């Protein structure tokens, strides 16, 4: 890469990383429409943590659908290490192109089916995903290294290793997909066992990739690891190893400016932690310590986010407003308050009641001051108080006059 091109890339990466949420969503939509995503993916790497929070509706692309069963092992190129059994993101486009060429008319038909669709269209993902994975599993073993592979910076041996792993996962994508579909219910032990048992004869790296993907989407990672261990498939310790990796990658990154997202994430973490704490897969002291550390981390994140978000998203807008909020603004404030209540309820199960009590007191004191300010609508404050602290407290504020 020439010096000027590298400088331009750095400038673009910085621009993407610092774009506003709205602009970032627009950039993602534009990148999603590009035929060649290789450069786009590089530019987006710096903004991925924010993208996870924003969750813009992602259109189904052939690459994303193809690698959905391998989601658990896809990493940013700069974090990729050969020995980890992962796939660097910058290899996806090249591999997809090779599969697309090999599938010919089949790939074209699938692309026509997913055009304009999003991952929320589960029926489309289900029908065309199964077809794609089945076909890709058949053609990939006989593919030779594509010429574009060099541009990824990976060596030929990496290609063969990654292609073999991907083909192995695609061969068993049917039972894996069944488990992923039920991920919010655990997934149930039987689905985890079935998926791994189907791939029992595959290389360990295939089993690890499947398990990593299940863990990534699972509501109950402890139960998944326990089910995987009980299945006795693959080399010993595989379930614990993947669970440890899951724990290492866990980042309770709750967004202060996205109360609904923070609440959802907090609830998911609480469910996962409670499951981990009761799982036989977390018997060993060092793993117990990791889970305890995760509990502390998530608890801290919930408390901090709650305290900051109640001030930033509720008290500040009302304090700085020159007139009562209009209907749309009030609906948004109530919706935020409901999300923050969910965050509080989830967070309190991890401890630290006093911090929530203090934050709540601070907000209610703020509402009390606003109540006395001329032009304030007491009903608005009472509604928000009711959501955060209950109706009795709200009635007192309302009648405080």
């Amino acid at each position: 890469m020439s010096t000027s091109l590298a400088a331009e890339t750095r400038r673009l990466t910085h621009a993407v990383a610092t774009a506003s949420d709205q602009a970032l969503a627009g950039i993602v939509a534009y990148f999603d429409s590009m035929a060649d995503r290789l450069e786009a993916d590089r530019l987006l790497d710096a903004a991925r943590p924010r993208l996870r929070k924003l969750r813009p509706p992602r259109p189904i692309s052939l690459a994303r659908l193809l690698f959905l069963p391998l989601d658990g092992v896809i990493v940013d190129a700069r974090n990729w290490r050969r020995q980890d059994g992962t796939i660097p993101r910058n290899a996806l486009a090249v591999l997809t192109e090779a599969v697309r060429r090999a599938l010919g008319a089949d790939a074209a038909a699938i692309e026509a089916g997913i055009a304009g669709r999003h991952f929320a269209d589960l029926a489309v993902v289900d029908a065309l995903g199964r077809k794609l994975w089945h076909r890709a599993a058949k053609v990939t073993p006989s593919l030779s290294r594509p010429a574009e592979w060099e541009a990824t910076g990976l060596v030929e041996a990496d290609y063969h290793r990654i292609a073999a792993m991907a083909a192995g996962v695609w061969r068993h994508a049917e039972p894996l997909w069944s488990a992923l579909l039920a991920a919010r219910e655990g997934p149930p032990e039987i689905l985890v066992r079935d998926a791994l048992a189907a791939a029992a004869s595959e290389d360990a790296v295939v089993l690890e990739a499947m398990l990593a993907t299940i863990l990534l989407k699972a509501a109950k990672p402890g139960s998944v690891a326990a089910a995987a261990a009980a299945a006795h498939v693959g080399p010993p310790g595989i379930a614990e190893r993947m669970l440890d990796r899951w724990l290492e990658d866990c980042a309770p990154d709750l967004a202060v400016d996205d109360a609904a997202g923070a609440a959802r994430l907090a609830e998911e973490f609480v469910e996962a932690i409670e499951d981990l704490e009761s799982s036989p897969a977390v018997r060993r002291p060092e793993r117990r310590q990791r889970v305890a550390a995760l509990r502390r981390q998530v608890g801290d994140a919930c408390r901090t986010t709650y305290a900051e978000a109640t001030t930033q998203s509720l008290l500040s807008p009302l304090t700085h407003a020159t007139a009562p909020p209009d209907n749309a603004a009030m609906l948004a404030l109530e919706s935020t308050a409901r999300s923050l209540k969910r965050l509080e309820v989830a967070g309190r199960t991890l401890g630290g009641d006093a911090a929530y009590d203090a934050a709540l007191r601070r907000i209610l004191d703020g509402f009390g001051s606003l109540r006395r300010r001329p032009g304030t609508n007491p009903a608005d404050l009472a509604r928000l108080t009711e959501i955060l602290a209950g109706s009795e407290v709200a009635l007192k504020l309302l009648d405080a006059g």
Partner: protein
Amino acid sequence: MIEIRNDILERFGTSAYQPATFLERGVTVPFTTPFLLGARIRPTDTRVGLDVVITNPSGGRGYYIVPWSALTEICSPTLHDRRLWQRLSDQTAIAPTLVRETARAVAAEGLAGREAAAAVAKTRNEDGAARMRTNFLLLLDLVRRTETRDEAAIPPQADTPANIETRARRAMARFAPRLGVSGDIIAAWLESIAGAVAAVGVPGDASPSRMRRLARRVATLAGEIELWIAQSADPTEQHAATLVVDAAKLTLGCVAAAFRDLDALLSDIPTLLRAWREDSTDLARRAVRPDWLLDGWQVICDLWTDADPGLRGGALWEMALLAPVMPREVEEWFGIAEDWDRPTRLRRVVRANEDWRTGRMLDIVARNERLLAKAA
């Protein structure tokens, strides 16, 4: 946040709720607290104070009949419901109109959200317009029945506003002596009658009244549920659906009888005015019958329309729990005979509704506030 004190609540459980009169059945209060959705209030047996009749959502004994004063001990009502509870505590003569007006006043304060407050303002305007339109239609009927053939060359409804006013004054002045009162008294009586019957409407009114619109919604609901039954394979869900349809059809039959009765009265204004002079309470009593009959159905219809079409099976359980019991008093009102034990027998096997026990109470409160905005 909205916990139920089951230890206290269980003291009020009963299966003996087969009201003989509409007053005993009570009036639905538009509470937003999930546990209280569709609850009714009625005078106590001693007529001192109020009871709240709450359908048992857990599938146990049929109902809880809770003294009004104990309501805040057994659950933590929403802010809106606490205020409504305060306002209704002072009331003695319970009727659908009174509960509706009290609830509107509370919702207008914004305690169930901006949407509900705006809906109240809109509905009050609509009710005012309905009263004026009814008064006008009553006057037109009086004009038609008191004018000579020559005077009626132009039908009154087709005349200019100024001429209509002149003809109305002449009609009242002409008719007043027959009742031994002044034209102004006739005008006042017509205004009172309009106020009493605006909610049910008068024959010939092109805009359907509030009660007739609700009756149509119930009929549409029954039709849609029957279609749903035909397409549903689950017999347990069909059971709840059938219960709602049966209750709706019974109600519609009675409401049709009430409308026929009122339409006959309101089709001859001179006769009605004579009757009003003798006993104004008779018309008032008959005019509120549709309101009593349809009481409770608004929330049932709204539950159905608010539910995602794919999740209506769940909504039907909630609707089945709230399906009103028909009091035997309708026999006296319209001579309608029914198997009075049937609804209770069906209701006993309605499946438990667990929603109010889940952690999504705030979402259910928000849903109930949406329903309130629709019902204002």
